């Protein structure tokens, strides 16, 4: 498998990654009555709020400790204490997730110490205070996401370990859409399992219209459930890239501390990886795959047979978080397409190897570029003569320039509505992706052929 050499440019030109505090904020938004608080300048929380809002199209509250020049020099302890008091008085959160920023990390703030001091002063309602270190000069939003999950689990599952049900399973879903989270919950329930999904922003970031005002949106993983994770039968971590660094993963922690068996599998995108998910749940639950999913799988295969002639050997450029790229690449290879370029701003060092392992049949036909940016992808693009681009909104310029379709998946999608409802996971998600991919290619064909493809 060819691997594209790292960009020889020093500057990052049109980045293909976001910063770590964003990932942490997303996790805290997925905890019941959770409030993210960024320890740094107010601009960080404003920018990140705005970015999450434009993707999810939902209210997103993120507090800040509003550093001033003075706090940048003398430290932000006073600011953090006041921020905790104010945000508690206004929103009465059950949990405040404090993520650091490049500013507070650069000056070396002792946030755990500060939290201890504040907690002694007892905040109204006694919210749980969790601290995660997310300097934006280290890793990307994907790392911030993983780190926040582990911190929350370490902090909460360490205290209470009584599962509410003997058939409880912990699920760490990876960065995915609210629709994906809802689907995971459905699958777990259909296996007769009780799932604790962390984070679960399926409602907090994709809720219905409100009949009355709510300080914090309903939904999210209940804190008590997180507390009971140590008593679950199993944990399932989705994302092979994430799991390739076991020391960073909550599931490994639960396994070591509470002997909760840990299954690390891929994002369930496409047939093979969804099969793996279903097998895992079969094993954990002792139940066989519910009939419903046999049908869904059958319909997916049937659709793939219907459409295979329109897409085989079609070439796609895929980009986004490394786990998403890996999942999409595996899926594309299953349906006969070639993910000619797999690109990510992430840099775990494991993407090449995992693509090799998962897609041996396309050896030599896939190039992998990690730690790259959109300018880099754009420069490489033409060489592959791709038929389509698959990824978030930021690749639209490449698609425009090459006059090929962009199938939007992942995060951020801010130039279309419905990002929160895109289903990537499960047989159902694969079917939706499949239809969108085939139809995007058919539209091009129809538009370009004078004779028309009006009857297939």
């Amino acid at each position: 498998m060819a691997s594209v050499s790292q960009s020889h440019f020093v500057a990052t030109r049109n980045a293909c990654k976001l910063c770590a505090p964003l990932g942490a904020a997303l996790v805290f938004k997925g905890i019941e009555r959770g409030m993210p608080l960024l320890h740094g300048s107010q601009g960080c929380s404003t920018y990140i709020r705005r970015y999450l809002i434009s993707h999810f199209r939902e209210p997103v509250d993120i507090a800040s400790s509003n550093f001033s020049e003075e706090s940048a020099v003398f430290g932000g302890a006073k600011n953090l204490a006041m921020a905790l008091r104010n945000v508690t008085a206004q929103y009465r959160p059950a949990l405040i997730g404090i993520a650091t920023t490049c500013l507070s990390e650069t000056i070396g703030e002792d946030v755990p110490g500060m939290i201890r001091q504040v907690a002694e002063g007892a905040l109204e309602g006694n919210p749980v205070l969790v601290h995660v270190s997310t300097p934006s000069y280290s890793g990307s939003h994907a790392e911030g996401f993983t780190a926040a999950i582990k911190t929350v689990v370490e902090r909460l599952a360490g205290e209470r370990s009584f599962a509410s049900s003997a058939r409880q399973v912990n699920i760490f879903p990876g960065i995915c859409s609210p629709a994906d989270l809802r689907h995971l919950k459905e699958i777990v329930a259909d296996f007769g399992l009780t799932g604790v999904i962390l984070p679960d922003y399926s409602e907090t970031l994709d809720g219905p219209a409100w009949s009355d005002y709510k300080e914090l949106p309903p939904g999210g993983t209940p804190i008590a459930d997180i507390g009971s994770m140590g008593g679950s039968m199993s944990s399932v971590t989705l994302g092979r890239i994430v799991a390739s660094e076991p020391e960073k993963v909550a599931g490994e922690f639960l396994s070591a501390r509470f002997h909760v068996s840990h299954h690390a599998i891929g994002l369930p995108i496409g047939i093979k990886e969804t099969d793996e998910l279903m097998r895992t749940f079969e094993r954990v639950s002792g139940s066989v795959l519910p009939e419903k999913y046999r049908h869904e799988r059958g319909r997916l295969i049937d659709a793939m047979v219907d459409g295979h002639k329109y897409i085989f050997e079609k070439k796609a450029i895929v980009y986004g978080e490394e786990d998403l790229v890996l999942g999409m690449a595996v899926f594309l290879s299953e349906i006969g397409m070639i993910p000619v370029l797999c690109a990510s701003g992430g840099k775990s060092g494991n993407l090449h190897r995992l693509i090799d392992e998962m897609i041996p049949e396309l050896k030599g036909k896939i190039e992998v570029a990690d730690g790259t940016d959109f300018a880099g992808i754009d420069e490489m693009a033409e060489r592959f003569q791709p038929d389509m681009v698959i990824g978030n909104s930021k690749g639209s310029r490449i698609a425009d320039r090459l006059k090929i379709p962009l199938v939007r998946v992942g995060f951020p999608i801010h130039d279309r509505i419905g990002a929160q409802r895109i289903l990537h996971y499960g047989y159902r998600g694969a079917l939706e992706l499949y239809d969108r991919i085939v139809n995007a290619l058919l539209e091009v064909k129809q538009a370009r052929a004078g004779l028309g493809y009006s009857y297939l």
Partner: protein
Amino acid sequence: MSPENKIQDAQSIKEEMLGSYPTKTARKRQKQFVVNEPGLEAKQEIQANVRTLPGIITQRGCSYAGCKGVVLGPTRNILNITHGPIGCGYYSWLTRRNQTRPESDTDDNFMPYCLSTDMQDENIIFGGEKKLKKAIEEAVDIFHPKAVGVFSTCPIGLIGDDVHAVSKEMSEKTGANIFGFSCEGYKGVSQSAGHHIANNQLFKHVIGKGKACKAGKFKVAMLGEYNIGGDAFALEELFDKCGITLVATFSGNSTYEQFASAHLADLTVVMCHRSINYVADMIEKKYGVPWFKVNFIGAEASAKSLRKIAEYFDNAELKARVEKVIAEEMAKVKSALDEIKPKVEGKTAMLFVGGSRAHHYQELFKEMGMKILAAGYEFAHRDDYEGRDVLPTIKVDADSRNIEELHVEAHASEYRPRKTKEELEALAKKGFEFRDYKGMMPEMDAGTLVIDDINHFETEIIIEKYKPDIFCAGIKEKYVIQKLGMPLKQLHSYDYGGPYASFAGAINFYRDVERMLNTRIWKHIKAPWHKVEPLAAVFINATN
């Protein structure tokens, strides 16, 4: 309702909002609330441009956002490099909706690019100057820009990277005009500090460098117009029709060359007072170009502004042409209003946005016969609320002191007063005002609420209490307001509508607002079962 009752009502809402805060927070916060009573002998004072308290979810951005995003963002041929970790560059990458129109296919347009030094751990520890130099060098090699702006983010100031020294060195090395901005996010109170930092550097490094500008009889530079939704295009067209030459716009649809030659105009007009009034002052002091405030949001306001420009140039031909354009445009405006006004008259609006927009857009609502219940700015200063009279009395706090004030003197060879003393006196006699801005509060009704830096929490209370028909703000407020079944008009990005400036823009706005108010969507918000006391709602209330 009588004004007295309204004032009482607003007072009680104000108290309720403050009641939820810890005492110390409430004490500080209350100074930023005023129940408006215009015309009082002792003018009301509002606290503004003070730091948001930690933990209050403000809508404000940071200094970097104001500098890189707002002021330099809309300029197409100055290449911007963010020096810092990746987030800041990414979040300011094409996220403001300012547009640009290069004159030809070969003209530079760097706006789609987001260059960042993407600082990593080792750069924070060992310093990032070397990386920055290389980044500048390769950027100049690829793009051959005339000018490069380098923007510092939070950690830069702390680790001691000197962006100014690096910029100077690289300027000499590459021949491009390269300048740095110390716009670290923790500086100043809001994005307003960033505007100031940006404008100061433009004044030091760009304005005045140009030796020629667009030819024309009536040359104007427009400050504080950022071409959101094509506003600058609409204004360019309008000025063109009137025979007025726009030499430069700061910074909608602008270029480096326009900035460099802005001082060659014979008049400076200011749209957004907040973000740039001080540049108008500096241009006047250094080059002798007078300035006044204009407003092209609203048909009447546009007409008034055009007439003032014509009056300034005092040319019969120009005046006649301006009157002709106004007559033509107002006929169209009238016919639009005849159709739309009956459908919206008496409806209510609130505006919490910007440093001028919350004021400017009141014009449009008034033209539609709508009432303003409350308004406030996100990052304005006292003069934007109370008028420039209060300038000498504004206390300079630690945050403002950190923003450089340039000392400007008349240029030895290029200072050229555009009006003689006699001409200025004659104009003054006619009631003509320069350097004028009366602020928002005098133009708002008695009993309306004026709130500075309204936050998420207060927004939700104020909506609940007043139930306005439309709320104007930005994307951060948009979905919470809409979730409650109320239309929100974004005045930062126009929700991909616009332009709203000039006469044609006003008509666009009337139509957009009428559609938003009267769409059937809002009728679906309440489900049929909401008529009966719903179980679900009771449950949620109980858990809240």
